[in-house]
C-alpha cells in the first residue's frame, strides 16, 4: 500500500496544517491570558519579591563605610585589626562628617551593639583634629571602645550586604557579640508568643468552624429545596456583608453593657457590678472570627454533600450498619474533600487576619498581622515588617502546598 500523504485544502500535508492550527490556538489562548498575567506579575508578584528582598537588604550601611568594610575583608576578627582598617575608618568617617550623613549609621550600628551611638558621635566631633599616620592609637585615644573586640567585631558583622538579622528577631533570636545565634533576654521574647497565639487561634477557629459547619451543611444538603434555599440565606447574608459591619455587631454584643452580658447577669452567672470582659481579649477574637469565617467552611462542605446520593446511606444501613457506622464508614469519608477545602480556606484566612483581632482583640488577642501593621505604620521598621510578612507568607504557602500534596486540590480519595 502506498503511504501517500493526505493533503489539506491549502496543499500542505494534513499533519503540518493541523500543527499550524494548534499553534495558532495556543498563541490565541496565551494572548488572552497575557494581560492579566503581566498585570499581576508587575503590580503584585514583583512587589512581593521586592518585599522579600527588603527584609534581608542591609546595603545602606555597606555603602556608607565602603573602605572600612573593604579592608576588614582580610581581617579574621580574632584580635584587634591593624592600622589599615583604622585608616580606612578615618577616611569613611571624615567623609560622612563632611556630608553630615553619619546619623544614619548610628541607628544601624547601635542595633548591632549598644554604645555605638556615643562612640560615633564623640569620634566624629574630634575627627578633624586627627593627625596623619598611626590612626589606630588616635582612635583608641578618642574612645577606648575602639580598642575593644566587642565593638570592632560588631562593625565587621554589619559589613555584609545581606543579613538575616530581621528574621532572627522575628523568632526572638539575635547575634551575640561573638557572632553566635542566641536567644534574646527572657523579657523580650514576644514574637514567639505571638506566632504561637496566631497558630493557636487559626487552629481553634478552624476546629470550631468545622464543628459548627458540619451539621448545618448536612441539613442544608438534605432538606427539600424550598426550605434549604431559605436557610441558605442565613449563610450567604453574613458572607456578603461587610467585614466591618459584622465586627461592629460583635462589638455591640460583647461590650460590657451589651446583650450577652445582660443575659449573663439575668441568668445570675455574674453579678451586675462584676460583668465579665468578653471583648478586648482572646475570647472576643475567637468568637467573632468563628462567626465571620463560618460561611467559608459551610459552603465547600455543603457543595460536596450535595453530590452524595442519599441511597448510599440507605445501602450502608441495609447492609447491617447502624446509622452511626454507616455515617462513619460511608458518608463521612465522602465529605472529606469538602472538609479539606473548608479547613484550608478558614485556616489560611484566619492566620492572616487583621481587622477583627485589631478591633476586638485588645492586647492579648492581637495576632501576627497586627504586629506587621504596627511595624509598617508606627515603628517604621519596614525591614522587620517585611521579614515577618515573608515568614507568614512562607507559612501560608507551605500549608497550601502540603494540602495540595496530601489530598490534591480537586480529586481527593480516602480509603
Amino acid at each position, binding site marked *: 500500500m502506498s503511504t501517500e500523504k493526505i493533503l489539506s485544502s491549502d496543499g500542505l500535508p494534513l499533519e503540518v496544517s493541523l500543527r499550524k492550527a494548534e499553534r495558532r490556538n495556543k498563541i490565541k489562548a496565551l494572548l488572552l491570558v497575557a494581560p492579566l498575567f503581566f498585570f499581576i506579575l508587575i503590580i503584585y508578584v514583583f512587589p512581593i519579591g521586592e518585599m522579600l528582598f527588603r527584609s534581608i537588604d542591609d546595603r545602606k550601611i555597606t555603602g556608607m563605610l565602603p573602605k572600612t568594610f573593604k579592608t576588614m575583608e582580610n581581617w579574621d576578627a580574632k584580635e584587634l585589626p591593624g592600622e589599615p582598617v583604622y585608616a580606612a575608618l578615618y577616611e569613611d568617617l571624615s567623609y560622612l562628617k563632611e556630608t553630615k550623613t553619619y546619623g544614619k549609621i548610628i541607628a544601624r550600628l547601635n542595633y548591632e551593639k549598644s554604645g555605638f551611638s556615643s562612640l560615633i558621635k564623640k569620634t566624629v566631633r574630634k575627627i578633624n583634629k586627627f593627625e596623619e599616620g598611626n590612626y589606630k592609637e588616635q582612635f583608641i585615644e578618642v574612645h577606648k571602645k575602639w580598642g575593644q573586640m566587642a565593638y570592632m567585631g560588631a562593625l565587621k558583622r554589619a559589613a555584609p550586604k545581606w543579613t538575616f538579622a530581621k528574621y532572627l528577631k522575628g523568632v526572638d533570636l539575635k547575634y551575640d557579640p561573638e557572632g553566635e545565634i542566641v536567644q534574646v533576654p527572657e523579657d523580650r521574647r514576644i514574637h514567639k508568643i505571638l506566632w504561637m497565639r496566631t497558630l493557636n487561634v487559626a487552629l481553634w477557629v478552624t476546629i470550631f468552624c468545622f464543628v459548627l459547619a458540619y451539621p448545618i451543611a448536612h441539613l442544608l444538603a438534605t432538606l427539600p429545596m424550598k426550605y434549604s434555599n431559605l436557610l441558605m440565606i442565613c449563610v450567604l447574608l453574613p458572607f456578603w456583608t461587610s467585614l466591618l459591619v459584622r465586627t461592629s455587631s460583635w462589638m455591640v454584643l460583647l461590650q460590657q453593657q451589651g446583650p450577652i452580658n445582660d443575659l449573663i447577669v439575668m441568668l445570675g452567672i455574674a453579678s451586675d457590678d462584676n460583668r465579665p470582659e468578653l471583648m478586648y481579649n482572646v475570647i472576643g477574637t475567637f468568637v467573632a472570627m468563628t462567626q465571620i469565617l463560618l460561611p467559608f467552611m459551610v459552603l465547600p462542605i455543603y457543595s460536596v454533600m450535595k453530590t452524595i446520593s442519599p441511597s448510599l446511606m440507605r445501602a450502608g444501613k441495609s447492609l447491617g450498619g447502624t446509622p452511626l457506622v454507616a455515617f462513619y464508614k460511608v458518608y463521612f469519608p465522602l465529605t472529606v474533600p469538602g472538609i479539606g477545602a473548608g479547613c484550608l480556606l478558614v485556616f489560611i484566612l484566619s492566620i*492572616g487576619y487583621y481587622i477583627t483581632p485589631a478591633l476586638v482583640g485588645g492586647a492579648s488577642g492581637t495576632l501576627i498581622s497586627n504586629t506587621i501593621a504596627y511595624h509598617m505604620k508606627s515603628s517604621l521598621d519596614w525591614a522587620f515588617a517585611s521579614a515577618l510578612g515573608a515568614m507568614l507568607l512562607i507559612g501560608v504557602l507551605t500549608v497550601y502546598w502540603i494540602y495540595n500534596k496530601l489530598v490534591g486540590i480537586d480529586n481527593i480519595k480516602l480509603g
Partner: protein
Amino acid sequence: MSLPNYTPLHYKIWHYTYLTICGLVFFFLIAPLFVILPLSFNAEQYIHFSAKMIALDPEAFSLRWYQDMIWGTKNPWGLAAKNSIIIAFFATIGSTILGTVAALGLSSRHMPYKAAVMALLISPMIVPLIISGTAIFFFMAKVGLSATHTGIILAHIILGTPFVVITVTATLSGFDHSVTRAAASLGSNPVNTFMKITLPLILPGVISGALFAFVTSFDEVVVVLFLAGLDNTTIPIQMWVGLREQLSPTIMAVATCLIIMSTLILLTAELLRRRSERLRGINR
C-alpha cells in the same frame, strides 16, 4: 424532615437534638447582624438596648443618626461614600474585563501550563491581605501612586480578579464550544462571535464575578489603610477609624445601610446563579 411513625425513640431524640443544634448555629450566624438594625434607630446616644426600646415605646426610636450620617456637621461619610463608589466602580470594571479575558484563555484546551498560571492568577486570594498591602504599598510609593485613587483602584483590581477568573472559568466549564465554531463557519469574525454568542451565554458568570469584585473592593480595608491619604478615605476606613474610637449610633446607621446593600447584592447573585444553572442545563 418529618420522621416516620416507626422510628425508634432514641433516633427521634437524636434527630430533634440535631435539629436544635442546627437551629442554634443558624441563629449564631444570622442574629449578630440583626442587633445592629434596632440600635441604629435608637433615640439616645448609647449603644445598648434601653428599657424603653424593649417596651417598643415609639419615643425611644428616631431617625436622628441617619440624619447625622447624611447632613451631620464635619461628617466624613459623604466623601467616603463617593470615594468608595468611584474606586469600587473602576476596580470592578478592571477586574471584570481582565478576569473574563484571562478566563477565556484559561478555559481553552490549548492553554499550556494551565495549573501553574491559574495558581498565580488566584494567588491574591490566598496571600494574607496584610502581605498584599505591604507589598503593594512599597510598589505604589515607588511609582508615585500612593494616596491616589489610581493606586487604590489598581490594588483592588488585583484583589478582585481571582473571583472573576474563578466564576467565569466555572461557567465556561459547561460551555458548548460548537456554538462558536458554528458562528465562525457562518462567517462571523471572532470579536463578533464573542459579543453575540459567547458573552450572552457566560454573562451570569461574568456578572456574579463582577459582584464579587465589587464587594471585595467596596469592603476592602487593609490595603486601603496602607495606600489611602486623607482624600482617599472610604466607607470601610471611616468605619475602622470610628470603631477604634468608640461605637457610635451613626456607625450603626451606616452599618444598617451596608446590610441592606448586601441583601440586595445577595438576592442578585442568587438570581444569577439560578439563571446560569438553567442556561447551562443543570437540572436539580
